[in-house]
């Protein structure tokens, strides 16, 4: 027996040694669906970037699993191509050589033969590469296959970790398409892997600005006193994309914008903006607060007035003429899938009672932008006359998640000149200017967190099920409403979305 104690602490790590990099322990990663779009564009480059920053352990091993009849060399060439195209850090031949040594490909289907081969390969790696039995399984495959993969991992004994080692599984959205299917999916995964070994990726949570929401709110005295219904009029959370859905019919038709984006990204952003202060900056405490605020959240009724959905029609995306959704290849010409979704949510708590949270997302909108705008009430009394403040709007704090990550504050200021006139000005903090260009990409951060067993930035099964509970009534209502409203590509969504805010005298910010 080895002299191992469960609460062993590495004597070389000290809390005050801030420079010492946190390198993942001995481990390897298996990617299912390694030939897919996500793996090629994001995962493989992120793994290289981690290696280049020196954050992967000696002997890190990357195993691709797929149907192709690839040799080790074929796989290396494929990974190298993906890395050269997508890595954010400089390509260094010697870093690549080390990574390539540990790159292996296992050919197979999601059947017994394939997983037996995989099990044999991993066992061999554990003896030749020093991965020490620690493996993360990245399920970069459609959720229909989760059940097969999990079942096979269990059957082949791969889901079970030996002594002093671990097995973890990483899954990507969509986490179901309503609360019931989400629950089923969780049961499938949790039947094989305990919840603490399951990491659900919501790559938005890996972004610096999103983590900065917590720093902004809880490390400062400046914002917290204003962060409630006394001062906040409403909150707008926007994720706009300029791309269309050409080529993504298989995934998107029948799913729609609300399931694709609101259920995960936007509701997670809402939770971070609205939650109470966690007792400590610890994964379980953060999750406790997120769950609490999600449980208090519900749609505002009547849904025909508080929600809007749309489908893009032909138009001009900037300087490009583009076709409408129904003309996109692969989409049903009678498709009722929405490409724009907006809804109004409320939070039943002392802090947020009466403050509407407007969430919207869409494809083929004016430009690609994700932001959260906290819009404040007007001053209760104005010594300035109406004509002196015609150009004064409501104060706002805007958190820009992408692009140009940063925080903007909008307030009134005197216009220079002999007359007293107040106009809105911006005070802008930009990440790129104030800090590094070295901030890691979201997937880099998240993959490292999985290897280090640091679950703060991953939604739990409970959070996933709760966010469906919020969204399900809206989805059910829309399902009975036929075709979504059309909106011209390159605009900011359908007229019904504007009416949804006008009803209460508000307007959408142009992001």
């Amino acid at each position, binding site marked *: 027996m080895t002299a191992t104690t469960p609460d062993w602490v590495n*004597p*070389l790590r000290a809390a005050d040694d801030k420079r*010492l*990099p946190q*390198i993942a*322990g001995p481990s390897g990663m298996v990617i299912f669906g390694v030939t897919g779009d996500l793996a090629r564009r994001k995962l493989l480059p992120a793994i290289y970037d981690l290696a280049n920053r020196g954050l992967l*352990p*000696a002997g890190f091993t990357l195993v691709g699993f797929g149907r192709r009849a690839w040799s080790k060399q074929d796989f290396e060439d494929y990974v190298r191509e993906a890395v050269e195209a997508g890595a954010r850090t400089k390509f260094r031949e010697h*870093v690549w050589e080390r990574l390539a040594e540990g790159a292996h490909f296992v050919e197979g289907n999601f059947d017994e033969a394939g997983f037996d081969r995989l099990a044999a390969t991993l066992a061999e790696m554990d003896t030749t590469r020093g991965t020490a039995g620690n493996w993360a399984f990245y399920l970069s495959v459609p959720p229909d296959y989760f059940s097969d993969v999990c079942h096979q991992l269990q059957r082949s004994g791969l889901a079970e970790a030996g002594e002093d080692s671990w097995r973890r599984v990483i899954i990507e959205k969509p986490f179901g398409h309503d609360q019931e299917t989400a629950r089923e999916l969780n049961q499938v995964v949790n039947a094989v892997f305990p919840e603490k070994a399951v990491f659900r990726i919501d790559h938005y949570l890996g972004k610096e600005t999103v983590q900065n929401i917590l720093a902004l709110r809880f490390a400062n005295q400046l914002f917290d006193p204003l962060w409630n219904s006394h001062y906040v009029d409403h909150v707008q959370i926007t994720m706009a994309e300029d791309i269309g859905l050409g080529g993504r019919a298989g995934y998107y038709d029948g799913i729609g914008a609300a399931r694709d984006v609101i259920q995960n990204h936007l509701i997670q952003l809402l939770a971070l903006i609205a939650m109470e202060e966690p007792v400590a900056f610890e994964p379980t405490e953060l999750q406790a607060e997120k769950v609490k605020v999600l449980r208090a959240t519900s749609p505002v009724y009547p849904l025909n007035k508080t929600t809007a959905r749309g489908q893009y029609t032909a138009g001009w995306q900037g300087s490009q003429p583009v076709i409408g959704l129904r003309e996109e290849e692969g989409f049903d010409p009678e498709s009722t899938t929405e490409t724009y979704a907006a809804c109004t949510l409320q939070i039943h708590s002392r802090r947020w009672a009466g403050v509407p949270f407007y969430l919207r997302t869409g494809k083929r909108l004016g430009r690609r932008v994700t932001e959260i705008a906290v819009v404040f009430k007007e001053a209760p009394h104005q010594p300035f006359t109406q004509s002196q403040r015609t150009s004064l709007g409501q104060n706002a704090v805007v958190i820009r998640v992408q692009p140009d990550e940063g925080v903007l504050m909008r307030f009134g200021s005197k216009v220079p000149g002999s007359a007293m006139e107040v106009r809105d000005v911006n005070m802008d903090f930009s990440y790129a200017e104030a800090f590094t260009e070295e901030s890691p990409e979201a997937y880099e951060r998240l993959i490292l967190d999985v290897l280090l067993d640091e679950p703060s930035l991953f939604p739990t099964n409970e959070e996933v099920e709760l966010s469906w509970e919020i969204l399900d009534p809206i989805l059910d209502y829309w399902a009975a409403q036929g075709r979504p409203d059309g909106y011209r590509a390159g605009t900011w969504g359908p007229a019904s979305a504007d009416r949804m805010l006008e009803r209460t005298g508000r307007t959408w910010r142009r992001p």
Partner: protein
Amino acid sequence: MIINLPHTTTRKIAASLLEARESNSQITGRVLTLIVVASAEDDVDHIISVTRDASHEHPARVIVLLTGDADEDTHLDAEVRVGGHAGASEMVVMRLTGELTHHLESVVTPLLLPDTPVVAWWPTTAPDNPSEHPIGELAQRRITNAAHDVTADILTRLRDTYAPGDSDMMWSKITGWRGIVASTLDRHPHEPVEAVTLSGPAGTPSVDIAAGWLADRLGVPVTRVITAPLDDDRVFPVRHLRFDRASGPLTVDVLDHRTVRVALPGRPESLVSMVIRSDADCLSEELRHLDPDLAYANALRGLPRVTVTDERD
């Protein structure tokens, strides 16, 4: 853009910085003032390029003070660099002679950014006691570069004069290596280390501070072996490290200028690539944490507990 200000005053320099800022909207959000103190004899181009590269990560106002002959007439020439010539920063390069060389703190005072940290960097020769140097007194963080002028007692001097906020680039040089070393102990079996041996050539303070770090953290006998000089100066100086443990030795060896081999008894050897850090990488890291580096202080404190043996022929 480079604005030349021959025979100038700090007031003109400040005005020219403000003007450059108004006409060049890129410069905002500077997070610190970095004062670089060097002599006009030093490799000024190298110093400026290192600061420029480091400033990609830390937009700063950089003030480079190049002191010349104190016996000449008092004279100040300045160069204001913004935009592409200064990285993400704005830079003032000043050449001073005469009486002015004794009043560096007065020269920089009107140019410090309000309410942001001040960092002093001596890229070549450092004062005997950095925290008592007039520029060092202004700064929260004082960065020296012992590797540049190695004397027999350099580490003793750094230890004796240590004040919170000091650090040296010999320490940032070994951060990547320390990460690899620490991660080897994360592997099973988790046994206590009984003794440590590490070796490297003479005149490489990074090896000594690495020994001090291990002695402080582990509290076991640490032997630093002085070996023959390196044939390739790109190679990381701590050539060999051995942890003695009950199950056998754990070793970390530097194979070439970019590869490290980790070996544990009964386990396959593994190779890991390690990038040698440039001066700009080190400076960037130094600027990342602006509070006193207690780990460095402890490593200095560990130095007297290190046994030194000489293996040179």
